[in-house]
């Protein structure tokens, strides 16, 4: 990972299935941009599909 471009947080849909996530947009070696997010309730990390 070369660089963290942006970081943000989402808290939503508490009235249904709550979503609490921390998102990170990173630049990988080679220049690819990838968005990862962490489910704050479980600590698991995922990669967002384009």
């Amino acid at each position, binding site marked *: 990972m070369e660089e963290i471009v*942006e970081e*943000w*947080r989402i808290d*939503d849909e*508490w009235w*249904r299935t709550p979503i609490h996530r921390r*998102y990170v947009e990173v630049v990988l070696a080679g220049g690819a941009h990838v968005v990862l997010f962490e489910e704050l309730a479980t600590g698991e990390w995922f990669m967002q599909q384009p």
Partner: protein
Amino acid sequence: MYIELHAHSAFSFLDGTTPPEALAQRAVQLGYPALALTDHAGLYGSMAFAQAAKHLGLQPITGAEVTLLDGTHLTLLAETPIGYANLCRLLTEAHLGREDRRDPRLPFDSLVERQEGLIVLSGCRAGLLPTVLAHDGLLAARRLADECRERFGRERFFLELQRNHVKGDRDRVRALGEIADAEGLAVVATGDVHYDRRERARLHDVLTALRHRTTLDGSHDVRRANAEFSLRPPAEAAALFADRPDAIAHTQIIAERCAAFDLTRDLGYTFPDFRGADRTPAPRALAELCRARLDERYPPDDPLRSEAERRLADELRLVELHRLSGFFLVYHDLFDLAREVAADVRRGSRRTSGNLLPGRGRGSSVSSIICYFLGLSHVDPIRSNLFIGRFLNESLASIPDIDLDFPREIREELIRRVYDRYGHEHVGLVCSYPTYRLRSAVREIGKALDLPPGELEQIAKLASSHHSAAAVREEMQHIPGLADKVDAPLWRDLCELAEQIAGLPRHISQHVGGMIISSRPLVEIVPLERSAMPDRVVCQWDKDSCDDARFVKIDFLALGMLSLVEECVELVAKREGEPPDLSRIDFDDQAIYDRICAGDTVGLFQIESRAQIQMIRRVRPRTLPDLAVQVAIVRPGPIVGGAVNPYVRRREAQRRARDEGRPYEPPVDHPLLREALGETLGVIIFQDQVLQVCQALARFTAGQAEALRRAMSRRRSRELLEGFWEEFRDGAAKNGVPEPTAQRVFEQVVAFSEFGFPKSHAAAFGLLAYQSAWLFHYYPVEYYTALFNNQPMGFYSLDALGRDAVRHGVEIRLPDVNRSDVWCTVEDGAVRVGLGFLREWNEEHALAVVEARERHGPYRGLGDLVRRAPPTLSRNAFEHLVWVGGCDAFGLTRRELLWQVGLWLGPKEDRDPRRARRQLELPLNQPHDQLRFASVDASEKLLAEYAVLGFAASGHPLTLLAGALPPQAVRSDRLVDREHGADVEVVGLVVARQRPQTAKGFVFILMEDEGGMTNVIVHPDVYERDRLAVRGEPLLWVKGTLAKDDGTLNVIAAEVRPLAVGRPGGWADRSRHAPEAAGRSTAQPLNRPSAFRFLRSMRALAPGSKDWG
């Protein structure tokens, strides 16, 4: 250290979630030394915030977030008093300069023009600079920043940086930082706070959905992305800007600069300086005015003369001490204006010679002899033994309130004249903030959560009598269909969120009668905006904030009873030639007191409610001071304080002692209380007695008493009053009062955190109650006519009032097109209902029909009426007139007349009532107008009256059901023949339902049958089981036990059901049962199917009951 400079309270309507006081408290908990409040387009909560902040040791910074014409935002902070004045003017311009008062916006140039003393921040994500940056790019943003620096200066304009973990923050903050560095501008970090704690983010989401009138699901695009808009601990906020320490440092620098302005101290409001024409100093002018009246009211040989002189000297001294002479002179000026207005309004009418006052004082000001001399009070304070301390004392910390009641038409004109007299820049109306109640909160939040409307409405109805989510959830558990929802997702959220939103302000509205007058232009002291009423401008502060600001607030209230009295006196003068002089009637007329003590008080002022009537029969007032007690005792203060039963028992003991010719000494909790409470038989009935008790028993100084007085009149007063316990206990101990006694007395004191009347107010209202009873007794027809014409007012519906009239021998005659006026009139000793009472008839329609009749003679038939009536009178309107017999004089049955309506007016038009009928030019006859139809029967007539007028004049619906009612049901006027403790059944139409907070879950129902009213008391257990009937059914059957006690009659309910006919306990076999024994006539029985149909229709058409609690 980081200081928050951008925070919204609940006064950013439907956006902020936190009351300003709570925001201040949270800031202190987190260790902030200062906080800026920057609500949208207003300073609504700023005074409350500043007061709370000062009290907590927090520096309040006054500001606002404004929207520019292009929709972008800027944050403005007041640095100096001039800056504050500019802020007020700018906010006023934003509101008054716009067509749509709900979308205030400010021209950028106006801000540039009025920037002195202000600090300007570039705004949130929707701010001016960020918006240009996002839409037009970096270069455009730099140009704009350059312009802002030129126009505002480096010292005044700051770039606002916000990091709330929203996507895009990083780039935006970096870009803004670069722009600032390049342009030589400073940056400042802010939090864009919308709630005090993270947990309130849910409520914020709901408010957003409400604001956009959509559901939570539908508000995705406008909701904030996360829950990062709370007030953070300063260290956490500082850590977010570790790369820009200057952004943090500038928060402190700005806060220090803004310390130069303190809203609680530097407002600059000055008292209107109105002196006499010869510029006599105000204290002397006031003294001279009063002394001129002294001889008139207390002639030299009057035994009360010397006491009056002492009282006047004392009050003038206090007035001068507090520099209030100008204040009283302003009021005197206003009352003179009121006299002019009244003379103009009454000109040409017969009541002009009736010596009617233009208006009357109410509240504690009625205890003042100065007010009495200036005409602001009509009650003699010396003769009535009224205590001045509630109104004026040594330690007065706020401007005293003088409230004045006027008849409606005088008040409307008076408000207009006040604007003219003092100038539109110097006068403004006080605002109020309607708040969410639990019931409305449940409805609205439920919609946002997209919950099913039917079930939502059930819960909303429950919520109307509770004040906490826990209580609502508790009640839900007992209702089939709702019990399983108590802990279900969404429903649980509903209750919690409804409780959080309850009490938050929804929007701004006009206060009932408060006006502010200032010598400096008001627009520099508090922002003004348009109210919903045309031509009215309100200031952005409510009465509490105006009080904190020490504004002179005038309260002009419209009192329906005064309008009734005006009209009644006029009608009497019309009949007798001379109006009665209500100031000179016999105030000891025992016939009046006999009527009052019998509980025959429906329609009278203040003493007509169910609770009042019950109390009257126990208290039995026989003098004006007794009536003052009567008016005051049915209030939460005395009820919660446990004063009622002791008072009633002691009244009885007093009566017995008098009959036996021996003196009566009422017991008091301690001899020190004898002077303060002797008159009310040892208990606290009046609010001012609270002060007297604290002074007498606990040695409260004037200062402590003043603090207590203020606490009593504020919101959340119970908590404030409880804070006085230690001082009370210690003071009482110094007087040798044992602690248990002090405790017992203090409980009565705290009870007056609930609503209670000062004695002066009760005396003023008691007097009006007597005068209304006098008019009613001697001129019942005129009284009922005025009562009908001045609705809505009072406790009873027109339906109940009409039957009360009939019970008193006054006939109510239905509208007649050839006899009725616009409103009700007196006709041959009866009340003729006016055409304006018909549904789909407005005042203009009625006036046109009446005028046409007066010009060209009575209407000769339906065709004649249709030709001469205004074209905008709809077909429905004609049918309504026919249905209630308004055209019976044409000699046809109502069905025949309806047929003719169809012939003359053609098919029903589309539903737009504004489409005019076709006008008929030629007086030709219609073919088919000779067809004949049967007349309508009694049940159809009655139902038509309810449908068209909302009340029935033909009688009580139960009269038509007499043969079908439960045979054991006893008529209300025959209950008195039954024994105490007897099992009884009663039926009736519900007039009122009450579930007072002070009643511990009991429900009181007032029902009416053919004979009169019955009181039903429903125990909480019975309510729980029969809730739906108790709360919602218009016609009830009740089985219970008769309780006869001390002149009162109640049915203690064991079962409450909707009234049914033909069910068990229903259908009467008249050969075996005798309904006559239960007091019912079977003169006009409906047959069983008709009775069933009639009852079903009645359930739909019955007038709504008056419900409280």
